[in-house]
């Protein structure tokens, strides 16, 4: 077999892409620790003064709390509703299954601008005053398809004969779900919940439309930018980045690791193994 030649051009493209992707992030992170207010090199020393400064800001702290509350509510409600919907969707033999799945996944393809605007119009028509609750509802619409995509794929991979075996052993539907189905998929569902939390936590466009007088962290960053450009923005952005990265990492670890369980359920090839 021919080994692939490593062309200097290809390596160059890779390095350039990485630089292009990560240097702006790095700049933000580095300058969040800058000891002076200048956003230019040379780097004059390390300090946490900008973090201390934002922590003193009531506006920052309330928007951080708001984001956390909205993301938690969105994550939890998504987990409960999404799990039930995914279970129903993967278990049904109805002819409506495919169109229903399409409808549930459709919001993935809609621009945030459109979702935000239509929700705003709807809330207006329904005379619901805008608040963090309307944000949570909007986020639910936004993150549900992501959750469902993961949950349905996982549930469908499960071996149906496991559920039949449990029913055969006397388990009611509820017992089958809690004792057989959930134990196999809960890590993946937790991972998908973290993803929902992360998506909600740093969502900007839809939030911008449906939020009331309060502010969330991304909105706070946006409004600060319009006032001043000082390194405290970098500190906030770095925090947001850090939280989001941790959540995505957790989500990734759980969803990929959790998929392992069902490999044991269908030992067709295992059945070919020798006895001793």
């Amino acid at each position: 077999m021919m080994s692939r030649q490593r062309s200097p051009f290809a390596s160059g493209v890779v390095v350039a892409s990485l630089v292009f992707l990560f240097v702006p992030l790095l700049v933000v992170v580095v300058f969040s620790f800058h000891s002076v207010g200048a956003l230019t090199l040379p780097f004059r020393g390390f300090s946490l003064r900008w973090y201390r400064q934002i922590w003193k800001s009531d506006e920052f702290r309330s928007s951080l709390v708001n984001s956390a509350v909205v993301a938690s509510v969105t994550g939890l409600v998504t987990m409960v509703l999404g799990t039930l919907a995914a279970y129903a969707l993967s278990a049904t033999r109805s002819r409506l299954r495919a169109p229903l799945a399409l409808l549930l996944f459709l919001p993935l393809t809609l621009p945030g601008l459109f979702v935000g605007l239509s929700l705003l119009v709807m809330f207006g028509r329904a005379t619901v005053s805008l608040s963090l609750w309307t944000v949570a509802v909007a986020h639910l619409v936004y993150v549900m398809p992501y959750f469902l995509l993961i949950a349905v794929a996982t549930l469908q991979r499960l071996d149906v004969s496991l559920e039949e075996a449990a029913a055969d052993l006397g388990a009611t539907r509820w017992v089958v779900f809690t004792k057989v189905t959930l134990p196999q998929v809960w890590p993946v569902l937790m991972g998908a919940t973290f993803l929902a939390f992360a998506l909600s936590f740093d969502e900007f466009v839809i939030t911008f439309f449906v939020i009331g007088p309060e502010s969330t962290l991304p909105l706070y960053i946006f409004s600060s930018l319009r006032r001043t450009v000082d390194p405290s923005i970098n500190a906030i952005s770095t925090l947001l980045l850090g939280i989001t990265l941790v959540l995505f990492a957790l989500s990734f670890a759980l969803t990929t690791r959790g998929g392992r369980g069902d490999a044991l359920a269908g030992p067709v090839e295992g059945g070919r193994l020798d006895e001793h």
Partner: protein
Amino acid sequence: MRLRVQWKAGASMNIENTVTGAPRVEAIAVQRRFGGVTALGGVSLTAAPGEFVTLLGPSGCGKTTLLRIIAGFDQPTAGSVRLNGHDVTKVPAHRRPVNMVFQRPALFPHLDVARNVAFGPRIAGIGKSELRARVDDALAMVRLDGYQHRRAHELSGGQMQRVALARAIVNRPEVLLLDEPLSALDLRIRLEMEEELRRLHRELGATFVYVTHDQREALALSDRIAVFSGGQIEQVGTPDEVYNRPATPFVARLVGDANVIAVDAAPGESDSSLVHLGDVPLLVNGSVRGPAWLVVRPENVQLGLPVGTESLCGTIVDVSFRGTGFAYRVDISGLPHPLKAEVPGGPPLAVGERVSVAWLPSAVCLLTRDDHRDSDMIGVGH
């Protein structure tokens, strides 16, 4: 070993009380259609207490559908299912006093062996100390004592299927349903497991309803065999009946190997029919008249030195070694396909040799031929 029958939780309906004399399992005119496709076309079958009944047939013949209907995983389009004389057609799977072993072990991957086996009794509310004893008992019965704390993925295919068996029998079901439980295993382990199944059946005294496409398994295990084809039962009988007195050419070909030859039967002397193979007239027991199938098993064909001109003669066109003897293909003029013959011992006859072909009158049978119905059988016997 005396077994106390313990019913599953929720089996609140009165199926504990056996209607005296009722069969353990009874399928009455069970029909199942999927859209426009008929999987089962009105099938009736019974299994007596303690009986080992096998549903045998090629894939897609409806045998698994019937088993799943008995288990409660599928509902019949028409007809009913009775257990101990009680109609359970509308009773959901988890409330039927039957247990099933699937083609794949379907062990719960998040539980160890002991917890897998304890799943049923735990739902039935069996107390801790008894639960443990019963799990250990069941594992001992499938010879897996000491495997309590293994995980499914640490077991071999045969061991997994044993755990699946233990998980079913620990509930002490009166009816054990088995859906091709050995089909995914290696031949050597399959033979071992066959022995285990026979032993379990003897020791448990439960009714076994067993689905397989393997005629050898069916013959080796069953008290009675129901041969399925195209959603219908072709024949129900003991292994001996099904093998030696097949009701249809389909059964003859499915169960064991057979030469099935299209003939025209004319009245013979007294209780026999006269058929012609090529130019040679032969008398066959039975009173079939008109178009017929002549069925003769390869091991019942006797080959010898050609004598006279009256007897049936042919030329050997193929020889293969079969361990206990040799299998031949004999070309007989006037027959569309060479005849299969299996002769114990050697030395082998050579290809091209002329031989006489004979069989005992009791070793062949004559079946009515309906060219319309048996159209798929035209050209059999090759």
